[in-house]
């Protein structure tokens, strides 16, 4: 994987974007990063328990994807789902409160970090058994084709999910039935602590695409507009031609798999090299170098975002726990539905 260093020329997709859209995308990436950092601190203080998988380093993918979506389109994601929820416009307070296990959480405190759902925002999970959401996403796409609703389902998975059965079966059916779905593998190089050299029989995951009757598209993430354009093309193919696509995005997570993972498996200098090509830092550079913004202005934005996330943590902390009887709710639906 060839990584541009930190002084490399900015990618064309980023340099040709206007100031407002660059600032918007930058701010959304920043919100995700600060949200995750706030969550990590809350975790170390014992406010969040269970599993916590951070999205730091991969933000441009969620932000770019949301830019390419239309109302009615859906994201189906893994347990590393916070970034998608925020990019789709889910309230940071409700997201944070969900992880604190509070009544005010996105799903009332029953889901936690790994199960973010907000139907009306196009945030359709939040699945935590690796690979078992691929058939679900294919099912959403099946319904879209059946109903003719024109919606596209964008399903994210990790490089660690490509070997498991449901991934294969879901993609087989999506390809066989020409379903309007985009599968996006976020290849962050590690299946938990195991590098892809020890999990993938063929390094290029999109080499599987023809076998599923799909178009493949593989690229290293550079900036959110590049992601918007590449995933946008796949979304168009789904919407206009009812053809699925298998996209592989080469990315990197700067934190461990989860909070309990010190990530000692990384190669020497690896993290530093990827940090140097951080799409977030590139967007920062674009604002400074191309759009005449100052360090002070960006710091002021950062202060606002940090304040938003601190407030979210405070909101979550102050929120009540779910009512005791809430544990019995939403198990069965009464009557004919």
């Amino acid at each position, binding site marked *: 994987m060839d990584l541009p260093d930190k002084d490399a020329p900015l990618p064309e997709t980023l340099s040709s974007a206007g100031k407002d859209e660059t600032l918007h995308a930058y701010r959304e990436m920043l919100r995700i990063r600060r949200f995750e950092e706030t969550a990590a601190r809350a975790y170390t203080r014992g406010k969040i328990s269970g599993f916590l998988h951070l999205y730091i380093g991969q933000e441009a993918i969620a932000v770019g994807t949301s830019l390419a979506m239309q109302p009615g389109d859906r994201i189906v994601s893994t347990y590393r789902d916070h970034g998608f929820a925020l990019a789709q416009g889910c309230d940071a307070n409700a997201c944070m409160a969900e992880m604190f296990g509070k009544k005010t959480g*996105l*799903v*009332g405190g*029953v*889901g936690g970090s790994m*199960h973010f*759902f*907000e*139907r009306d925002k196009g945030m*359709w*999970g*939040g*699945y935590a*058994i690796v690979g*078992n*959401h*691929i*058939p*679900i*996403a*294919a*099912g*959403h*796409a*099946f*319904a*879209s084709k*059946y*109903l003719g609703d024109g919606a596209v389902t964008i399903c994210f998975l990790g490089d660690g999910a490509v070997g498991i*059965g*449901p991934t294969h*079966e*879901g993609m*087989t*059916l999506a390809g*066989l039935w020409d379903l309007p779905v985009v599968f996006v593998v976020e290849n962050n190089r590690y299946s938990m602590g195991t590098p892809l050299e020890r999990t993938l029989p063929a390094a290029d995951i999109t080499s599987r695409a023809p076998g599923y009757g799909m178009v493949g598209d593989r690229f290293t993430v550079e900036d959110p507009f590049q992601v918007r354009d590449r995933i946008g093309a796949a979304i168009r193919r789904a919407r206009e031609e009812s053809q699925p696509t298998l996209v592989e995005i080469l990315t990197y997570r700067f934190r461990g798999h989860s909070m309990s993972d010190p990530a000692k498996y990384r190669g020497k200098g690896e993290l530093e090299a990827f940090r140097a090509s951080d799409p977030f830092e590139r967007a920062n550079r674009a604002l400074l170098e191309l759009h005449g913004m100052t360090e002070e202005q960006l710091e002021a934005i950062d202060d606002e975002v940090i304040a938003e996330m601190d407030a979210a943590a405070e909101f979550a902390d102050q929120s009540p726990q779910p009512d005791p009887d809430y544990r019995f*709710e*939403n*198990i*069965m*639906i009464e*009557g*004919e*539905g």
Partner: protein
Amino acid sequence: MPTLQIREAIREAMREEMVRDDKVFLMGEEVGHYQGAYKCSQGLLEQFGEKRVVDTPITETGFAGVGIGAAMCGLRPIIEFMTFNFSAVAFDQILNNAAKIHHMTGGQFSVPIVFRGPNAAAHMLGSTHSQAFDSFYAHIPGLKVVSVATPYDAKGLLKSAIRDPNPVIFFESELMYSVRGEVPEEEYLIPIGEADIKRPGDDVTLLCWGQSVPTALAAAELAQEHSDLSAEVIDLRTLRPLDTEAIIASVKKTNRVVIAEHGWPYGGVGAELVDRIQRLAFDWLDAPVARVCYDDIPFAYAENLEHLSIPQPEDVHAALRQVAYRD
């Protein structure tokens, strides 16, 4: 009243519900062009087309998940497993997605889906194709579990299952698809969760469902004839939610219980029944509850060995005598 086979009753239930609601569709292996491995879907492809009668490749976890994902969007899938033995491959989809999504999403999504197909042993299919999944699925909160033994029940309960807003596991039996029975021409529904007294009696309550219903009825006949024992045969019809009220009412009348179960004994549905009976009717019991189950072993292919592993009417008759202290 016309008589139908169980497979025809199932077909008519699906046909009527597909006519009634265009969101209902059937998906599974060989359901369309092949007309169904057991011909339950015969003629449906011709009537409804490939959009609504969907043949799948051999991908149980794939099409079970597709059904769940489609149900979350408001469709009403009927997923046919050629046998519930193959549902083991899709178990994670049913356990972690179908049963939990309504809860896990804080009620934002529902999963109105039916998983149906033959369950339990058939005839000399060997250990991997002879299993009863009753207790596996009945164990899971978030599911309803139905098991049918007559054409009348099959049609009325399948129609209710298709209209139910929750995921429903619907057990049929390969050995019983040809069983005939009366089915009214006019539309009717049977509510999920209600047991049915298949044969009234006074001396012993005999609980059964699915394949053990004909076994229990034959045993009741033997008991009447040879032991002068009157068994009340209750077909549970639904394993989750259980009709505890009907069970306990009968136990309080007879004071003795036998459970005929086509399934393994360890952790079986019968064990749950015993627990409820001892908790709710302890003072009414005149004998320990007896269970007649599959042998606690993987099934053998050989005809004699398989036959020995399955509760026979004679075994159930012996249990009826045992709880009545006739030996």
